[in-house]
């Protein structure tokens, strides 16, 4: 008999509302997924309820140790015997087309990093003044942070940071390209920010968010009253307008078009006097930069891990490709060969589903057609698990998804920054394997052109708390009305040490221990 699953989560205190829900059912293998069809009155009722509950519960914050709750939640979700973990692993591959191994390595691998230590620094969201002139180390998070701002905006920011206003309700709209991770992040941010939150699930994958919220209920019933996870058709004004009116902040993580549509609604409400802050995380593309010193097998393996993450569809994924320093000695071509070698075994451990193989075929044809001109060299794995394309002229085309790893030679690591001009609105992450001595200078230059995240190779699709996000700073973006500062982070205290550390962890991956990598 098919098992019924809810594509939503509402607090226990709203159970009477649930009996009024009308449902649409979708059958998936052994499951029937129940989608409630919400009406405006119901959404307002839910919003008001979670908001009131958050105000009541967080009134006396001394009694709540959020970091312990975060730790417990994280512990549950990296336990392979946890029932909801197993359920999620049964459902997510069917819903997203991603292999089970991709989900474990990247989604649960990221959740694993959300420890109690990493949330401590959120208690004091008032970074020292010098953060606006140089990178400072956030010790708990092991992240370098720097804010870029005009003089005028620095003054505004200094004023605003003294009047931080904790949001009472955040609407958090999640995307389908990164299954589960953003919903989990929403729950964490709600807890750490001590706010209520309504999380909209992606239409393609509505099950993880509710499962994650149920886990919170298992740990702390009271806090679980401050969160709701709901599905609705993205853009549905009958739901979104009343909900946005109730919200202090609306955050959207999605495509450029979805982000733009939400922005239009938020701007319209603001013009009418509603004090709702919009946080927009639209479509972005990334790339990896490898210095000549790092043209070696382990770095190639770590690059492959970056390319495989969510099959290349995360905002930070190196969709533009891998740019390798080459002084004419063939280093880049060599690196392409190394990636080919390393991808063979990694693709066995982290397999790709047929869906993404088919998607790759579409793009690969383009490069196969170029081979005759001598401008492209295509290396295809025997088992058709991936392809490496070596291109001898650097170009920015964001089509390196579905395990199509594009490698380009560059004379100097700074060359890529000069190329980015027309893409500046779509930049987020540069994955780096560069020497420590270049770290701050490179980050400064990258930041100036629009990048916000500098991540060590191998961690590009494994974000963690403490990092900036599209130039915004998590939580702070809900609390300050204007985005006065472009926040940039480097996700390692010491890039060279981090590369050594990650290289040593490749052995876990070789043994199939996916959660021990990273």
């Amino acid at each position, binding site marked *: 008999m098919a098992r019924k699953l809810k594509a939503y989560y509402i607090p226990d205190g709203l159970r009477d509302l649930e009996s009024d829900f009308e449902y649409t059912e979708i059958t998936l293998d052994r499951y029937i997924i129940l989608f409630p069809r919400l009406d405006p009155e119901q959404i307002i009722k839910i919003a008001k309820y979670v908001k009131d509950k958050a105000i009541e519960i967080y009134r006396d914050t001394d009694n709540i140790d959020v970091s312990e709750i975060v730790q417990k939640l994280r512990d549950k979700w990296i336990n392979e015997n946890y029932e909801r973990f197993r359920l999620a692993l049964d459902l997510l591959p069917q819903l997203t*087309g991603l292999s089970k191994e991709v989900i474990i390595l990247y989604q649960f691998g990221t959740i694993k990093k959300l420890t109690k230590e990493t949330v401590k620094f959120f208690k004091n969201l008032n970074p020292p003044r010098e953060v606006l002139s140089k990178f400072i180390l956030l010790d708990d998070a092991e992240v370098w942070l720097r804010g870029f701002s005009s003089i005028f905006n620095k003054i505004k920011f200094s004023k605003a940071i003294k009047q931080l206003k904790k949001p009472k309700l955040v609407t958090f709209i999640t995307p389908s390209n990164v299954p589960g991770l953003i919903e989990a992040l929403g729950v964490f941010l709600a807890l750490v920010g001590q706010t209520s939150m309504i999380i909209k699930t992606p239409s393609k994958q509505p099950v993880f968010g509710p499962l994650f919220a149920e886990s919170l209920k298992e740990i702390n019933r009271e806090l679980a009253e401050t969160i709701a996870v709901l599905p609705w058709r993205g853009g549905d004004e009958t739901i979104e307008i009343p909900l946005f009116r109730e919200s202090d902040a609306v955050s959207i993580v999605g495509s450029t078009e979805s982000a733009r549509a939400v922005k239009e609604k938020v701007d319209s409400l603001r013009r009418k006097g509603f004090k709702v802050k919009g946080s927009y995380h639209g479509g972005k593309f990334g790339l990896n930069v490898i210095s000549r010193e790092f043209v070696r097998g382990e770095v190639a393996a770590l690059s492959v891990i970056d390319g495989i993450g969510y099959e290349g569809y995360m905002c930070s994924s190196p969709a533009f490709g891998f740019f390798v320093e080459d002084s004419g000695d063939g280093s880049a071509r060599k690196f392409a060969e190394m990636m080919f070698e390393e991808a063979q075994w990694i693709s066995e451990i982290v397999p790709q589903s047929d*869906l993404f193989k*088919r*998607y790759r*075929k*579409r793009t*690969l*044809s*383009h490069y*196969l*057609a*170029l*081979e*005759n*001109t*001598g*401008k492209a060299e*295509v290396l*295809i794995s025997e088992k*058709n698990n991936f*392809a490496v394309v070596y291109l001898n*002229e650097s170009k920015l085309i964001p089509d390196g998804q579905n395990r199509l790893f594009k490698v380009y030679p560059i004379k100097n690591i700074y060359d890529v920054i000069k190329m980015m001009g027309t893409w500046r609105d779509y930049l987020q992450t540069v994955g780096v394997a560069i020497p420590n001595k270049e770290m701050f200078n490179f980050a400064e230059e990258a930041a100036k052109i629009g990048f916000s995240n500098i991540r060590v190779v191998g961690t590009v699709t494994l974000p963690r708390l403490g990092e900036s996000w599209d130039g915004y700073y998590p939580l702070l973006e809900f609390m300050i009305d204007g985005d006065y500062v472009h926040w940039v982070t480097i996700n390692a205290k010491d890039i060279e040490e981090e590369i050594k550390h990650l290289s040593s962890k490749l052995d876990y991956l070789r043994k199939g221990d996916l959660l021990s990598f990273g």
Partner: protein
Amino acid sequence: MKELLNLLDNLVRPEQYRANLKEVKNLRLKAIKAAHKYHFENNEFYNKHCKAIGTGSEIDEKNFYQVLIPSEVFKSYPMDFPEENVEEFVKWLQGVSSIKVPAIDGSFKSLDDMLYEFDRRGILLGFSSGTSGRMTFLPRDKLTQNNLIKSYIATVNANVKLEMGKEYFVLGIPGKSYLQIAWNGRSVAEAISPGNVFYAFDELKADIVRIRTGVIKNFKEKLIGKLAGFMLPRIEKKAEEKILNKLKELKDRRIIYLAPPWILANVANRILDNGIDVKLHEDSIISSTGGFKGRKAIDRKELNKLLEEALGISSDRYTDLYGMTESNSIFMECFSNHVKHIPPWIEPFLLDDQLEPIEPHGKTTGRFGFIEPSALSYPGFILTGDKVTIDWDGCDSDDLNGPVILEIERLKGVEERGCAGVLSRTFEG
């Protein structure tokens, strides 16, 4: 090759539209398998493309959909202006061609000069362009050109009895151009009735098409673009006037009148607005292709009414066509039910958004792919960017067999393109 040519000779015939479905299918599958083997052995790109997905020189019917080539491949050349680096363009072209491409090097003053040189050496490089201005080029040698003409005539002949040498064509397309739709229209019409063809436009240069999409090389082209923006809408108006005069001259005579739909509508409106008497012979055929592409669209019923009132013939004599630069065939609406019959020598596919084939039963919608075995100079195994609805049960209003196309639209996120789009954008004010 000989076997393939024999198969094609039997397959691409008007009578196959009415032949036993099973027998046609057998013949088609044999031709497709032979075409696959031929391209696998003679086309470097196709060879690698097939090997990348584990397909060799023999192919099974169930794997046909896997070898479809995204149509974007035919615009994947590595430069913006092929005429400036012909040697490299030839290398690319050779890679995607199944025939020997002549060695041409150096550079040409214009794209048209380059296309002319290829034509002179026996290779037609028909082009089309999308909104990005990047052109699609398909190489056709004489054999594939002849196959295209044969295929078009076979489809028209299956729908209407042509009187070879006696038909008269009024074409709302350029008489001289390497734009594929123009080449097809001219070549087919001239093959049916040599000399009996009227063109509303004289010439359309490929360089002008590119410039009009905003892809320009220098200041001189910027000026040309400005000037063309002023001139071309007037040329279009003039062409409409020329069509009108020609129609008046051919009053009461059976003609085949083909133009993009907005030109059909504009000419009809002029006739009605000015009270001109242009009643065509009742057996005449009116035809359009490519849709309105950026022009103000007119509902089909309204267009039917307009054409009936202006030209005095039943809208049943109006047929819309669906063609692609990558295809060697035309999908023609039948006169009894106005649905586009898929030529029996073409294997159609609909794929879902996960690129899996949709079962061919009833009415289904998906990304359209097709195999055209009569394309010999390049692999006619094409995955388009069109979203198409097919009725696999066919049309029961006439005796033409096979599935029919009910609706065509562009897939979301895929560049708007097509030859009619080129004409629309180029001549629009």
